[in-house]
């Protein structure tokens, strides 16, 4: 674990922040979970025991600071392009390089993105917000300060609701809420590549000046699992809004976790920061590790020290003198004579917000009668895909599901099983997106219709699906005919086979007549064998039972 942490701390995809602070998750001989999850986090209370019986329980407290890169064509205060991979220092304007005489000019799209996000997270949007400068020295911050919104940010006092499985089987979900303290607009810094061998740092300013939304969450979470679930939901929301693509691996979503522990009734403990997290899975692990580490440290009589907080003292902030306050309007306060390109109307944006994931899930449950857990998986898997590719907004699993439902007579409750179990496992196995699936919704619907009309058995359907997956362009019906998978429709032939089986299995017949019904399954199995899987098991059972009772 130590090696992994050290490796991640060096920044595979992560970035050293501020004054080259060590990753606060200390590698070393610290304890690590014996299983997947270090902390048995009680989903209701959040308390957990220290592990030794009889000691006062510890309450872990987790807060998150999230930086989401705004999805826009150009940067927050300049007209240079926003793009992930590009030759070094090619997407840099004079302002981004902090050359003298340049001034910031605010990008409208970035403001809209922040307002959308604030509204989606139930925030109060400040009609007047201010910009500040936060000063610190670092090579990838050419101006020596970052323009941010410390004092009066654009949105405050919101909330984020997320779902959590109580157990690992996804059978029971509970909804939790975390408060959003504020959302502020700020500049991103450039990127530093540390060349320790030559004792130098290489600086690429392509990212310098890109718009960020900093979301500060209150410490309402109690473990890594909750933190991870909250971040997933936030990611989904951002991607649905389009305000950020929120792909963690590309640094579009950066999460810092603040962790502390305390005894019930006592004040909060000293918190440490966990930084350089570049995947949701690692977030959960790192948070749990830090909780465990703090508990062990305090249990052994030690103290928790926090080196990073000393830096964030109040010195270093001043108002940004080059930017007047940002004024937003709503339907009531719209100014009459202003150029509408200069006006941002909060109500107008609110009306045009897309359906948020929670709403989408509820609609799926209501419309199709599927279980909430299934609805959750439908959307979550799409999000996983979005994380691994740069394509968001493509038709995903929910749309595929709905298309199949439209084209088949099979009930949605049954269709969902085929989507989540069969289709999804194929896609995962071959690392494909829904769009890349060789089985289209049309083909799958066709297949399910055959099943529904009882022309093939369920086992046969799975066989056909496996064949369709090869993408050879055959229809389900063609495949069925080729592999002779049609169910025997001839009742007489089936009866004859059943009779033959009965005649051949005297012992079993006696056992069944004596009352042992389980042996019937063996007979059914034999019939299936004789018919090469082309018999309908339900029908076979009926026929056998009828004959045996004669």
């Amino acid at each position, binding site marked *: 674990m130590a090696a992994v942490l050290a490796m991640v701390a060096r920044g595979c995809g992560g970035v050293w922040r501020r004054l080259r602070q060590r990753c606060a998750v200390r590698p070393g001989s610290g304890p690590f979970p014996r299983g997947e999850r270090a902390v048995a986090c009680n989903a209701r209370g959040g308390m957990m025991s220290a592990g030794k019986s009889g000691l006062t329980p510890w309450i872990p407290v987790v807060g998150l600071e999230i930086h989401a890169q705004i999805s826009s064509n150009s940067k927050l205060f300049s007209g240079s392009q926003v793009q992930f991979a590009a030759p070094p220092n*090619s997407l840099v304007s004079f302002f981004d390089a902090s050359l003298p005489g340049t001034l910031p000019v605010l990008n409208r799209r970035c*403001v809209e993105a922040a307002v959308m996000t604030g509204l989606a997270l139930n925030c109060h949007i400040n009609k007047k917000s201010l910009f500040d400068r936060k000063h610190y020295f670092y090579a990838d911050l050419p101006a020596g300060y970052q323009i941010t919104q410390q004092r009066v940010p654009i949105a405050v006092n919101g909330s984020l609701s997320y779902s959590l499985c109580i157990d690992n089987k996804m059978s029971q979900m509970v909804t939790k809420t975390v408060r959003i303290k504020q959302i502020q607009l700020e500049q991103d810094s450039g990127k530093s590549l540390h060349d320790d061998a030559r004792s130098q740092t290489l600086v690429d300013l392509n990212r310098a000046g890109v718009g960020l939304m900093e979301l500060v969450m209150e410490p309402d979470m109690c473990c890594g699992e909750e933190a991870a679930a909250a971040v997933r939901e936030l990611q989904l929301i951002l991607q649905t809004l389009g305000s950020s693509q929120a792909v963690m691996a590309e640094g579009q979503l950066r999460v810092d976790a603040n962790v502390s522990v305390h005894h019930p009734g006592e004040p909060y403990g000293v918190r440490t920061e966990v930084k350089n997290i570049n995947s949701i899975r690692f977030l959960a692990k790192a948070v749990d590790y830090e909780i465990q580490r703090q508990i062990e440290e305090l249990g052994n009589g030690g103290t928790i020290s926090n080196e990073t907080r000393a830096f964030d003292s109040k010195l*270093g902030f001043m108002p940004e003198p080059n930017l*007047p306050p940002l004024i937003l309007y709503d339907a009531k306060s719209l100014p009459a004579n202003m150029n509408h390109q200069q006006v941002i109307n909060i109500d107008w944006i609110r009306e045009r917000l897309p359906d948020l994931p929670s709403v989408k899930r509820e609609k799926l449950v209501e419309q199709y009668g599927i279980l909430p857990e299934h609805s959750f998986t439908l959307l979550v898997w799409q999000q996983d895909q979005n994380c691994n590719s740069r394509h968001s907004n493509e038709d995903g699993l929910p749309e595929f599901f709905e298309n199949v439902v439209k084209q088949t007579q099979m009930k949605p409750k049954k269709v969902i099983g085929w989507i989540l179990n069969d289709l999804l496992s194929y896609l995962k196995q071959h690392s494909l997106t829904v769009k890349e699936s060789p089985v289209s919704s049309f083909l799958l619907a066709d297949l399910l219709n055959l099943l529904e009309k009882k022309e093939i058995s369920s086992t046969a359907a799975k066989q056909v699906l496996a064949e369709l997956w090869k993408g050879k362009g055959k229809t389900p019906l063609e495949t069925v005919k080729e592999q002779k998978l049609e169910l025997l429709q001839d009742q007489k032939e089936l009866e004859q086979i059943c009779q033959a089986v009965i005649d051949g299995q005297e012992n079993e017949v006696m056992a069944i007549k004596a009352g042992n019904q389980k042996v019937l399954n063996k007979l059914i199995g034999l019939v299936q064998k004789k018919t090469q899987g082309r018999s309908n098991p339900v029908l076979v059972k009926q026929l056998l039972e009828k004959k045996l009772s004669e």
Partner: protein
Amino acid sequence: MRVLSLGRWLRAGRVPPREPASRPSGHRHSGHRPQGPPQELPQGPSQVPPQQKVSVEVLEHLEHLALVDFRDSEGVERLQKAIQFADQLHEVNTDGVEPMDSVLEDRCLYLREDDVTEGNCTKELLENARETVEEYFVAPPGNIPLVKLEGQKTFLQGSK
């Protein structure tokens, strides 16, 4: 944050002087003007607190943040005088008045359309740099703290 806060912070908790409550709230001035060159302390009904020594911890913290070296007693003294000079601002009664950030606070903040109009000037930008490596700027590693020679501490530490 303003210079006022710096002074206040340095005095570690002492409340800056305020006008007595009996003054009418509309008045902005104490009715007293500072006299003479800035180095002299004006003595008026509202007094600037007596000279406070800058503590060692504060000094080290400042040096660390601002990467400045207050090299000798003259430097520290100048710092203290600068703080006192700024403290004169506390004489002004600002009860109920919102701090002003800029005289341009009534102007409209111009909103730019989200179009790509700049960039692609790598060569020009790199011309400014003393050292480059394959289109990257080169900087020294991390932040270099002020060199502390063996045995030498900040001036105040040494003088204790």
